[in-house]
């Protein structure tokens, strides 16, 4: 395989590993902090905050290898919006699924978000129409 393609493939694998780590860690932390007795609004604020903190911590560790933008931008979407979604779920249902199930959903959410970001990046990449100034 040509070295550039190999490098791009390794970076893509790294992006997915980062996404699944942030998604799984956020889901696990939210499951530990939010119970069905928690008010949904409070739960979502907790989820968002926890997701932001975890994404910053994990993103900072991954930044040297993946680059700040590829580690932080998708990570922040997964942490902040994922944290809110997981918290909404955990405040609404009586924890019918196990912790492993919750983490699995977090991991799947992380992978899905990374795939979406890769697609979005492909769509946006390239020249932007410039209007004469």
């Amino acid at each position: 395989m040509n070295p550039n393609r190999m490098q791009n493939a390794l970076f893509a694998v790294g992006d997915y590993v980062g996404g699944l780590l942030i998604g799984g860690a956020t889901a696990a932390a939210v499951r530990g902090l939010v119970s069905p007795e928690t008010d949904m609004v409070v739960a979502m604020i907790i989820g968002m905050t926890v997701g932001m903190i975890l994404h910053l911590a994990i993103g900072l560790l991954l930044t040297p290898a993946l680059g700040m933008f590829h580690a932080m931008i998708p990570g922040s979407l997964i942490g902040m919006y994922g944290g809110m979604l997981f918290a909404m779920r955990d405040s609404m249902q009586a924890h019918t699924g196990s912790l492993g199930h919750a983490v699995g959903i977090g991991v799947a959410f992380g992978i899905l978000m990374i795939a979406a970001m890769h697609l979005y990046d492909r769509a946006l990449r390239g020249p932007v129409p410039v209007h004469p100034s």
Partner: protein
Amino acid sequence: MDLALQAKWDRTSRTYGLLTWGEERRFGAAKQRLFAEMEGRCLMAAAGTGVDFPHFRPGLTITAIDVSPGMIEQARDRAAAYPGSLTLQVMDLQALQFADTTFDTAVTSCTLCSVPDPLRGLRELYRCLKPRGRLLMFEHVRSRIGPIALLQDVMTFITRRIGPDLNRDTVSNVVRAGFELRRETNVYLDIVKAIEARRPA
């Protein structure tokens, strides 16, 4: 000279190489394409540790400045390895000590995210460029996608303490400083961009 700014970037200079290792590999090719257009007498604003010097084509005459003596110190080996003339100076982009219309090309690389007053910095670049002089920028900017822009705003509260702002509207600032925007290319999402502008004749 802004001493607080200098101290911040001196601290960051110790880990800058490590933090930008992946980024350099991901964005290196895009930088090389952009900087291939440098010509004549060139100014590089905020050279950092000199990670961009290997992307410059050989044989140019370049003056590279940075506000941080720590960054300049780390850039020395890369400057010495450049196959052309590359001199380093500690200088604030917001108060350039060059005469008007000195340079043919000015380049920036993740610079306008770190300058306290980006418009003032751009006006200084405008002043020091010759008429029809080119400004080549590799910069990250605030996204135009609402949810991502919101996250950049939130993260900037933290990142500006150790390094850059993530939510600068650099493309608009280039136009506000008087430049003609010639080309804008998205390199990653609509956040990391290669920008070409020109000082009007």
